[in-house]
């Protein structure tokens, strides 16, 4: 890195990316530091495999570096990165992923999730089993997993999530609700004996 670069303070994402586009590598390092953990979490939910997630993480930031000058600041830097990661993940998928149990009604999923059982094992305890939780998340349809984790891990607002996914707010809420009950069903009912 050139020694003459100016120190970078608490700048907005827009400012950091503008400085990146002007050749300031420290500004991009600050941008990466700010968002790399969130992008990795999002990459993990998009591709479901740790090595693939790491590859997607790198691909996302390399693309962001090249496109820094195109960032207009009309979304947060984080959701801009999520969109880049999402597009890259979709390009990697050659054919649509199977949608396990996607035809089940919400009521049917709720029954599988323990609706009506008098003394079920706690879903919180089932979810604390990391391997069980990972299997259940992997078995969710990708659109539901992405929706669920944007809210539960990234705390995106409903409007932010809907915009990122290109769906209406009502559709976002419906998908989120189904994803939660679906995850509960997969945690309790299992994922086909895997």
């Amino acid at each position: 890195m050139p020694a003459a670069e100016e120190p970078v303070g608490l700048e907005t994402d827009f400012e950091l990316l503008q400085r990146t586009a002007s050749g300031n590598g420290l500004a991009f390092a600050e941008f990466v530091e700010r968002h790399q953990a969130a992008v990795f979490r999002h990459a993990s939910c998009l591709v479901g495999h740790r090595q693939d997630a790491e590859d997607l993480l790198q691909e996302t930031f390399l693309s962001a570096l090249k496109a820094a000058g195109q960032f207009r600041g009309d979304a947060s830097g984080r959701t801009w990165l999520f969109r880049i990661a999402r597009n890259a993940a979709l390009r990697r998928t050659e054919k649509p992923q199977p949608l396990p149990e996607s035809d089940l009604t919400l009521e049917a999923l709720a029954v599988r999730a323990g609706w009506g059982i008098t003394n079920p094992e706690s879903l919180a305890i089932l979810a604390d089993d990391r391997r069980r939780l990972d299997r259940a998340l992997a078995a969710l349809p990708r659109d539901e997993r992405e929706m669920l984790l944007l809210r539960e891990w990234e705390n995106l607002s409903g409007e932010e999530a809907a915009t990122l996914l290109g769906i209406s707010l009502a559709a976002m809420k419906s998908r989120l609700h189904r994803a939660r009950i679906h995850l509960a069903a997969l945690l309790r009912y299992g994922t086909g004996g895997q």
Partner: protein
Amino acid sequence: MIQLEGNQLVGGLWCSDILATLSQYLDGELDSQTAARVDDHLQGCSNCARFGADVSGMLVSLSGHQPELSEEKTARLAQALSEELERSQF
């Protein structure tokens, strides 16, 4: 179509209504009047109260199980970006 077993009317709402609005209730997105009716239902319906608490607890556990970016992965990312920066003549 599967029907919810024991679907009952409590506090002016059916159990199926509670299931349909559970996420909005947990997220605090219901208007105060509807939220109060849901509260009434939950007080009189042990099944819905248990199921709602169970799903809520699951979400708390889920948010505590986020994949973390290790120092090793962070270093590999920094290296890849550093090489790209050099190639780009930054």
